[in-house]
Structure formats: C-alpha cells, structure tokens
C-alpha cells in the first residue's frame, strides 16, 4: 500500500465524485462560468467532495489516536461512546438555547464529546481485565447508556426527529455554508502529525512514556481534545459515520505497523478514499435516489470489521 498509489486513487475518485449525480455535469460544462451547471458544481458538488475528504481523513485520524492512546485496536469514536456523548451534547444545546447557532452547538457538543471520552478513559483505567474485545464492549454499553439518556429527553421535549437527523450521516445536504466547520480537521491533522512521535510513545503505556521523559497525561489529554474536536464537527455537519475510525487505522496497521509518523498519511488518505467509494456507491446504486453514507459505511464497514475480528489472532 504505497502512498503514491493511494494518492492517485484519491485523485481519480475525487474526479469521479465531482461528476456523478442527478444533474449530469461534464467537465466541458464548467468552461461556461455562468451556466446553471457550473453553479451546481460550485455550490453542491465541490463542497460535497471537500466535506467527504475532510470527514474521512478526520474520523480515521481520530480513531487512530484513540486506538493508540487506549492501546486497544477496537476502540474508536464509535466504540467508546464519543459519538453518543456528542449527540447528547447537541440535544442539551438545543434544549438550553432554543435557537442555538452552529458555534454554540459546536461548543456544547465538544464539551460533551470530550467529557464522554475522558470518562471512558477513566473507566478503562479502572478495569483490570483488559481484554481486546471486552474493552470496546464496555465502550458500546457506555455509549448506549448515553444514547438512551439522549432518546429519553428527546422524547420528552419532542425533538426526537430532529435528533434522528444527527444520527444519520448524510452528504446530500452538504452545500456551501453548511460544511465549513469541517475545516477544523486540517489543523487537527497537522497537530497530530507534529505530535505523532509523542502519541506513539504514549501508546506504549505510562511507564514506558515516563521512562523516556514524556509527560504522559498531557499527551493523552491533547489527543482526546483532538478526537473530540473532529468528532463534533463531523457529527454537526455530516452526521454519524460509524466504523470509519475503527477499520481504517486497523487496515493501515496491518501493512505499516503503528509508528504514527509513518502511518498517519496512509490513514488519512485511506480514510478519505474509503468514504469517497462509499459515497459514490451510495449515489449510484439506487440512482436517482441516494443511500445515506452512514448506511453504506455501516454495511461495508461492519463486514470489514468482522473480517478484522476473525483474523485478529494473526496480528493483534
């Protein structure tokens, strides 16, 4: 899995993505700057592509950081309650500030995402039985508890349908003015790259980190903040994208190991590619209708996840 090939695949798929859709646009149409087609291209297609790339890379990196810091291959925003905590945060922001602006929602949701992930890490600290499968099960239970709290209060205040829309990841609503929050993924990626060596060391445990003079707790906290930031922005703009943060880092790890400096670019690229493929398939399969991205990623992703579970003995 060479970076060069991933990059070429990404370019090709991006190109394909730009010209697949209900209104047929060909590259030629863009030469006419004033046409309706150019407008659709600029308002809908291009933002959609950018959103997919940012969300795909961002969620994969978030998963990578979580797996490294929790030292468990099956921990990710999906399996550690981060997604559910974020949704709870969005609900709270909607109930507290009835006309919450995106930024207000973002801040409240971010605080919840961070608190939820920190709580999960605390639980992880207390558990003596650190089995590779047991830990994500605890995370899923934790997530479900948060999720049922969200559902309960959503019912009571009649916003259940509103909440459901945050549950479904969907790129079809993405257009200019609705996705820009996702640009937060870019600084997060850069910071992750700068801290890559530190995350790798932290991934080998507190004792190991202290031996090398690394401020372990601080690095873990920085990592969790990055994860919470990416998760929050993705849920607020696109919705939940399950499994992505789980499978992509695992696939890259099989081929390239766990040295973050080395695997980070691959993880970001593959995450974007995977999400692009799922999105294009979702748009083409029942054309002219669309299958939502969370369904596509859920079906394909859970299949790959099962495969990873079965081959676990071989490498984890």
């Amino acid at each position: 899995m060479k970076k060069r090939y991933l990059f070429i695949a990404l370019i090709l798929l991006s190109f394909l993505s730009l010209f697949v859709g209900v209104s047929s646009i060909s590259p030629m149409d863009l030469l006419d700057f004033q046409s309706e087609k150019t407008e659709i291209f600029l308002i809908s297609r291009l933002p959609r592509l950018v959103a997919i790339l940012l969300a795909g890379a961002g969620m994969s990196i978030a998963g990578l950081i979580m797996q490294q810091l929790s030292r468990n291959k099956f921990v990710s925003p999906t399996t550690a309650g981060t997604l559910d905590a974020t949704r709870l945060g969005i609900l709270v922001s909607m109930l507290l500030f009835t006309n919450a602006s995106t930024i207000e929602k973002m801040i409240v949701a971010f605080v919840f995402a961070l608190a939820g992930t920190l709580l999960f890490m605390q639980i992880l600290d207390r558990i003596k039985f650190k089995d590779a499968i047991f830990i994500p099960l605890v995370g899923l239970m934790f997530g479900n508890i948060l999720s049922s709290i969200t559902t309960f209060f959503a019912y009571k205040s009649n916003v259940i349908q509103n909440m459901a829309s945050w549950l479904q990841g969907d790129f079809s609503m993405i257009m200019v003015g609705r996705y820009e929050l996702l640009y937060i993924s870019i600084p997060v990626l850069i910071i992750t790259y700068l801290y890559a060596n530190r995350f790798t060391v932290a991934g080998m445990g507190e004792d190991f980190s202290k031996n090398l003079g690394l401020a372990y707790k601080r690095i873990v906290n920085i990592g969790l903040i990055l994860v919470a930031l990416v998760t929050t922005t993705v849920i607020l703009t696109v919705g939940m994208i399950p499994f992505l943060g789980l499978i992509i880092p695992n696939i890259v790890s099989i081929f390239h190991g766990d040295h973050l400096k080395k695997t980070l670019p691959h993880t970001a690229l593959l995450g974007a590619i995977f999400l692009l493929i799922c999105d294009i398939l979702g748009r083409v399969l029942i054309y002219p209708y669309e299958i939502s991205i969370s369904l596509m990623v859920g079906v394909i992703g859970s299949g790959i996840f099962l495969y990873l579970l079965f081959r676990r003995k071989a490498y984890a």
Partner: protein
Amino acid sequence: MIQVRELSKFYGKKAVVEKVNVNIHRGKITSFIGPNGAGKSTLLSMVSRLIDADTGEVLVDNDHVQKMKSNEFSKRVSILKQSNFMNVRLTIRELVSFGRFPYSRGKLNAEDIRIIEQAMDYMGLMEMQNDYMDELSGGQRQRAFIAMTIAQDTDYVLLDEPLNNLDMKHSVQIMKILRRLVDELGKTVVIVLHDINFASVYSDRIVALKNGRVVRDGPTEEIINSDALKEIYDMDIPIKKMNNCNICVYFNS
C-alpha cells in the same frame, strides 16, 4: 551512586515499602531479591520515578530525583518494566530509535542514528531490525528492549524481572548481556530477580527485602549463605559450590 534514603510507600495504611535505606554502587550489578510482596518492584518503581514515594528521597549522583526535569532524568536512569504493551506494532529499529527520544524528541540526527545502529549491533539485532516486535520470541523482544536502553545511553539501567517468561537459554543470554553492559560499557544495572541462583551467579551485590524492609544488603557472597537465606525466605537452603558458583539448592528444602 544512587542513594535511597528513608523511602516509604503506603497503600492505604499498609506500608509496602517502609523506611528503606540502600546505596546502589556504580559499575555493579545489584539484584533485589525477596519473597513475593516484599516490595522489590515498588522500590524499583520509586527509584525510577514511575511511582511517587510517600516519604523519603532518592539521590542520583547527589542530585535529588524529585527536583530533576523528567527529560534530564531519562538521560541518566532508564527503567524496563514487564508490561504487555506489545499490541503496538513497531519494528525493532523503530523501538530502539525511541531510546533517543529524550535527546531528539523524535527528530533523529546523524549522531542519533549512529548510536541506534551501534546499540542494535551490540545486541546482535542488525539482521532482524525490520521485524515487528509482536512477531519476535520472548528473548529477542527482551534484547530489543535492552538495545533501546543502550540507545537511551543512561548510566543506570533498572530492570523489573527481565527474565519473566523466558526459557533457560534466553534467561542465561539476557543475564550475560547485562553482565557485559556493566563490564564493557561501564553501566550500573539494578534488577529485580525471582531466581536466587541467577542473582548468586551474576550479581555483584544483593539487596534482600522482606515485608517492605531491607533485611540484608551487601556483596553477593555475604548474602548467599544458609543463615541469610533462612532470614529472607524462611527456608533452610543448602549452598553447593559448582564451577565456582554458589548454587542454592532450594527445590527440596
């Protein structure tokens, strides 16, 4: 020299390590021995700052350990603990490179790379430097970790039960390596050992702990005798001299 002064650690009201005073001499192998729960690992962890002591102090070459910056400390004292973190997939070379982390924070210069390769060469790991740690045998893995501490270039190397889960051949191999670290590279090695005979054959000094206190502390030949062992382990252990080694025959005592 590492000086341990009145060091104590309490878990709840129970003292795991109580008012321990020990000097660790430069250029020697010092073994911590004693029954389970004697506080050997806790003592080692406190000396290496992995856990904080409740009372007392540790001085490394007359500098207070608690006052040292963690980066400075990690250039002078390294600690290897047995933990099962090998679900992290790193190659030997990547692991050994992290030994330079206190110096380079991950950006390796030519000097770092030279030291890394020297360390791998010294441990005979050059051929397998690109193998992943999780695909190695226990002995190879342990050698990779020791190579990492060589790259870390500390005067003091502390190891918590380095022979755990190793077979006889690899145990002997590791102990010989530690001996070479002291004799050839001038390092000071401190190990927690379970097998009294490895302590007897390979160490210069022995510190015996029991119930969190030091019961014996001295050159190896002063500790490996039936009287001292009776006090440490509550067992009558005859000593047999073989090939110039004092062997404790404890299997049927």
